[in-house]
C-alpha cells in the first residue's frame, strides 16, 4: 500500500483541494472536561463517545482528485481486516457524489492526510467519523460546485453534482468531471457555512454492500503489510528477550555476536540488547550469542495469578448502583454462581513488525500498528527526535485485535536503525509474539440474584480482572479513575432490574495484560448472560422471555426486543431442537450496538460441538451490510475459539505456549453453519468490530446447560 503508488504520481499543486477543508469542515474538536466524578471519566471512555481525535489545528489533506477523475481518500483509520477503508470510502463517496469505482483509499500518515491521535480501536471508527467525514466531503463537493459554476459561467445553484461530474442541470451536456474542475486551481475558498448533509432517504452508497477496496491487491499477494516492508540497503533486527516473565536486563555485552555471520550492528545498552544483520535468520541466531545477565523475579505459577484475580482481592470500586441490591439479596431464595475466564492471546497471524529509517533530524517508520500516534511519541523518546520530525506510515495490518496498539517493534527497529545508520526491519517471531506482549486478562465473577413472580428483583455482579487500560495510562489517570474501564466493559447490567449492584475489583499481576478485542466484553457478557439463564432456569421461565420482560427502557430496549424476537424466529426457538442437540441464547448492548445470538450444540464423547449459530446484529444505521455480516461471522468464530479452546497459562514464570502447538486456534472443521441478520435502524451508525463477540460464549454455555443439565462456568468450556 505505502510502498507503491502507481496511480498517484501527482504534482500536489493544483490538486491539493483538501488543504484548508479540514479546518472548516471539522469544527468537532473534543476535549475531555475536568473530571467531577471518577466514574464520569470512565464513562466517557467506556461509552460510545470515544471521539476520533482528528486534528482541527492543522488543515490536512483528506482527498486528492486526479485529472483522470480518480478520488484518492486518505483514511485516518488503519485497515486491519475490519473493512474500515471500505466503509469510510462509502461515507465519503455519498456526500462527494462520486461513483464507487472512482474512489481509491490510502492510509493517512502522520504527515499526509487527516491526522488521528486516537488510534484505530474500540469499534469507534465509523461512529466517530461518520459526521466529520460527511461534513468534509460535503464541503469539498460545494467547493467543486462553486468552481465548476465559475468555469462554466453559470450560477452554482444551476449545477448538479452526480457521479463525479458537475453538470448544468438544464443542459447536462455542459459538464466537467471533478478532475477537470480542479485543473488550474491553486487557491480554494472554503465556504463559511457547513453545507447541509444529505438525508438518509437520498443515500445511494451508504447502506448498500460494496466490495472491499483492498481485496484486489490482497488476493494477488501485492498488498504491503508491516512484515513485508522492504527498502534498499536494509537490515533485519533481533532483540534479546527475557528468559522469564518480568526479568530485566542487568548487564549486556556483545559476547560472540560480532563474530556471527551477517552481523552489522550490535546494541548493548540500558535494558536493551539487539543486533542488526543482513538476514533475519542471522539476526535471530546472533542475538542468542550476546552475553546477557538478567535479574529474574521469583518464579510464579498460574495458581498465583488465579489467587490475585479473585473477587475481594485487590481494590474494589462500585461502578453501578440502583436501589439496594445488597439488602435484597439475602435469604434462601438468592441464587449465586461463580465464573472464570482465562488469559488469552491475540494470535494475529501477522506477528508485529515495523521498518525504521532514522536520520540525524528525521525518521520514517512503517508499522503494522493500530496506534501511529503512540508509535511516533515512543520513537521520539528513543531517538531524541521531536514528534514532528517523525513520519509514521501505517501499513496494512495482518490482524490487530488490540495487540497492535503496542509499539514495541517500531521502537526496537528505531533503536537499531539509529545505531546502524541503515533501515532496520524488526519482525517478531511467533514465540516473541506469544511470550513478550500483553494478554487478555483473566477474570473472576460472582453473581447473585433473586427472582420473584417472574421478575428479577435484584442482581449483583462482582467482577475481578487484571488490567486492561491501566497499564497504558499515566499513573495520575489511574488515581482519578480508580477502576479500569476496559476491564469492566460489559460488566454493568443493562436490564431493567430495580436493585443492581456492580463492583469491579482490580489487582496487579506479574504478567502484562491489556487491550484484547472487546476488552472485558466477552468475559463479562459470558458471566452475566450465563447467570441470566441460571435465573431463568430456577424460575422456570423461558430464557428469551426472561430477557424480554427486563428490557431496558427506551430505544435500546426496543432494538433489543426486535433483535431477540428476530433471532428467536431464525432459530425456531420455540420448537424442539433435533435429537441430541439443544439451543442457548445470549445478547448484549455494547457501544450502541445490539447483538443477539442463538447457538445449537451437541456433545460428541467429551467434545462440545457447536452445530448451528444464528445471530442478529443491529449496529444502528448499516453502512455496508455485508461488512457487518463479515465482522459478525469473524466475531463468532473468534468467540467460539475462546469458548471452546483458548487458554494461556503460566508455569514457572513463563508462558506455557511458545507457538500454536501450545495454543491452538479453532479451524474450519469446528465452525458451525452461521446465519447472520443485520438490522439497520436509526440514522447513526455504531461500531461492529467487537460487540458481536460479547454473547458468543454465553450462548454456547447456555445451550450446553440446556442439553446436559450441567452448567459450565469456566472458559474454555470443557465437559467432565
Amino acid at each position, binding site marked *: 500500500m505505502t510502498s507503491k503508488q502507481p496511480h498517484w504520481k501527482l504534482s500536489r499543486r493544483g490538486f491539493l483541494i483538501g488543504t484548508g477543508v479540514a479546518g472548516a469542515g471539522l469544527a468537532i474538536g473534543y476535549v475531555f472536561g475536568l473530571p467531577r466524578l471518577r466514574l464520569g471519566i470512565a464513562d466517557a471512555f467506556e461509552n460510545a463517545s470515544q471521539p476520533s481525535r482528528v486534528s482541527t489545528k492543522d488543515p490536512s489533506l483528506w482527498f486528492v482528485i486526479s485529472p483522470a477523475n480518480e478520488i484518492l481518500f486518505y483514511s485516518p483509520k488503519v485497515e486491519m*481486516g475490519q473493512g474500515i477503508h471500505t466503509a469510510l470510502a462509502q461515507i465519503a463517496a455519498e456526500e462527494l457524489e462520486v461513483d464507487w469505482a472512482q474512489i481509491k483509499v490510502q492510509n493517512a500518515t502522520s504527515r499526509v492526510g487527516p491526522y488521528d491521535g486516537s488510534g484505530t480501536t474500540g469499534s469507534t471508527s465509523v461512529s466517530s467519523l461518520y459526521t466529520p467525514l460527511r461534513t468534509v466531503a460535503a464541503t469539498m463537493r460545494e467547493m467543486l460546485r462553486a468552481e465548476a459554476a465559475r468555469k462554466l459561467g453559470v450560477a452554482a445553484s444551476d449545477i448538479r453534482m452526480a457521479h463525479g461530474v458537475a453538470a448544468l442541470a438544464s443542459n447536462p451536456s455542459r459538464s466537467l468531471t471533478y478532475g477537470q474542475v480542479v485543473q488550474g486551481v491553486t487557491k480554494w475558498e472554503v465556504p463559511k457555512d457547513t453545507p447541509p448533509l444529505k438525508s438518509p432517504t437520498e443515500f445511494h452508497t451508504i447502506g448498500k454492500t460494496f466490495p472491499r477496496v483492498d481485496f484486489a491487491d*490482497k488476493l494477488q499477494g501485492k498488498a504491503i503489510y508491516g512484515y513485508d516492508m522492504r527498502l534498499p540497503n536494509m537490515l533485519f533486527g533481533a532483540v534479546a528477550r527475557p528468559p522469564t516473565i518480568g526479568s530485566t536486563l542487568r548487564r549486556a555485552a556483545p559476547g560472540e555476536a560480532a563474530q556471527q555471520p551477517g552481523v552489522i550492528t550490535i546494541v548493548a545498552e540500558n535494558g536493551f540488547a539487539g543486533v542488526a544483520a543482513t538476514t533475519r535468520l542471522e539476526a535471530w541466531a546472533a542475538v542468542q550469542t550476546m552475553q546477557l545477565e538478567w535479574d529474574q523475579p521469583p518464579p510464579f505459577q498460574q495458581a498465583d495469578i488465579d489467587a490475585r484475580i479473585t473477587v475481594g482481592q485487590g481494590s474494589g470500586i462500585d461502578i453501578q448502583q440502583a436501589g439496594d441490591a445488597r439488602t435484597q439479596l439475602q435469604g434462601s431464595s438468592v441464587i449465586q454462581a461463580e465464573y472464570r475466564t482465562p488469559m488469552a492471546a491475540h494470535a494475529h497471524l501477522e506477528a508485529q513488525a515495523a521498518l525504521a529509517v532514522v536520520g540525524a533530524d528525521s525518521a520514517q517508520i512503517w508499522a503494522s500498528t493500530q496506534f501511529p500516534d503512540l508509535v511516533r511519541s515512543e520513537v521520539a523518546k528513543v531517538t531524541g527526535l521531536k514528534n514532528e520530525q517523525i513520519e509514521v506510515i501505517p501499513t496494512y495490518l495482518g490482524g490487530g485485535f488490540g495487540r497492535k496498539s503496542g509499539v514495541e517493534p517500531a521502537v526496537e527497529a528505531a533503536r537499531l536503525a539509529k545505531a546502524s545508520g541503515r533501515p532496520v526491519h524488526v519482525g517478531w517471531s511467533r514465540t516473541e509474539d506469544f511470550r513478550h506482549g500483553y494478554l487478555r486478562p483473566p477474570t473472576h465473577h460472582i453473581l447473585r440474584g433473586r427472582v420473584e413472580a417472574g421478575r428479577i428483583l435484584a442482581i449483583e455482579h462482582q467482577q475481578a480482572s487484571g488490567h486492561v487500560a491501566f497499564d497504558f495510562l499515566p499513573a495520575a489517570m489511574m488515581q482519578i479513575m480508580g477502576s479500569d474501564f476496559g476491564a469492566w466493559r460489559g460488566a454493568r447490567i443493562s436490564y431493567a432490574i430495580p436493585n443492581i449492584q456492580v463492583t469491579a475489583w482490580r489487582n496487579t499481576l506479574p504478567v502484562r495484560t491489556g487491550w484484547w478485542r472487546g476488552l472485558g466484553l466477552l468475559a463479562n457478557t459470558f458471566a452475566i448472560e450465563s447467570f441470566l439463564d441460571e435465573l431463568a432456569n430456577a424460575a422456570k421461565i423461558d430464557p428469551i422471555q426472561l430477557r424480554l420482560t427486563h428490557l431496558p427502557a427506551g430505544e435500546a430496549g426496543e432494538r433489543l426486543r426486535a433483535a431477540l424476537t428476530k433471532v428467536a424466529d431464525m432459530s425456531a426457538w420455540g420448537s424442539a431442537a433435533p435429537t441430541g442437540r439443544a439451543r442457548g441464547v445470549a445478547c448484549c448492548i455494547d457501544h450502541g450496538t445490539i447483538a443477539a445470538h442463538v447457538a445449537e450444540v451437541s456433545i460428541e464423547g467429551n467434545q462440545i460441538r457447536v452445530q448451528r449459530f444464528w445471530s442478529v446484529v443491529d449496529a444502528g444505521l448499516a453502512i455496508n451490510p455485508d461488512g457487518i455480516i463479515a465482522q459478525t461471522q*469473524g466475531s463468532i468464530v473468534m468467540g467460539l475459539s475462546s469458548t471452546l479452546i483458548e487458554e494461556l497459562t503460566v508455569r514457572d514464570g513463563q508462558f506455557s505456549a511458545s507457538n500454536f502447538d501450545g495454543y491452538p486456534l479453532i479451524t474450519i472443521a469446528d465452525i458451525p453453519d452461521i446465519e447472520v441478520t443485520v438490522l439497520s435502524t436509526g440514522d447513526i451508525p455504531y461500531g461492529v468490530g467487537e460487540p458481536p463477540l460479547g454473547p458468543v460464549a454465553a450462548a454456547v454455555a447456555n445451550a450446553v446447560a440446556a442439553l446436559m443439565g450441567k452448567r459450565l462456568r469456566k472458559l474454555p468450556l470443557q465437559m467432565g
Partner: protein
Amino acid sequence: MQLAINGTLFEVADTPARPLLWVLRDELGLTGTKVGCAAGFCGACTIHVDGVASRACQTPLAAVAGKQVRTIEGMAEVRADGSVTLHPVQQAFLDAQVPQCSWCMSGQMMTAAAFLANTPAPSDEQIIAAMNKNYCRCGCYARIKVAVREAATLLANEQEQPV
C-alpha cells in the same frame, strides 16, 4: 544455486538447509507468501512445489532444487498490456468477499488450488478436510467454504472451454 519460481530462474546463495520462506520474502522480495508461525502449524506460507501444497517455512532450499515453485504472485495471468486474469481460486475468493485482514489468504488459496487440481468435484467434507490445517484468525472460514466450492465450479467451466 538456482530456484525456479513462477517460471523465472533466480540465483541464490548455495545454502541448501535454509527454509525457502525467508529466501522468498527477504531476498527475492516475494512477500505475497506470508509468515505466520514459521513452524508448520498455521499454513500462512503455503506454496506449491511441483504442484504439491507445501509449507515454505518447512521447505529447505535443497527440497526445491530442480523443481517448479509457485507462489501467490504466480497465480494470476498478467498480460503484457498489464491486464490481469485472476486464477479461478482468486476469483472465487474475491467474488465471495472472503478475506478480512487477508494475511492467511495466500496460504488458503494455494492450499485450495492444489487440492482442487487433484479433486475437481469435491464434497463439502473433502473441502473441510483439505482446508482444516490453515488458520484464519479473522474467522473467514464460512466464506472460505463457499469460495472453494465456487472455485471448483469455475475450474470445471474452464476445463470445458477449448483453449
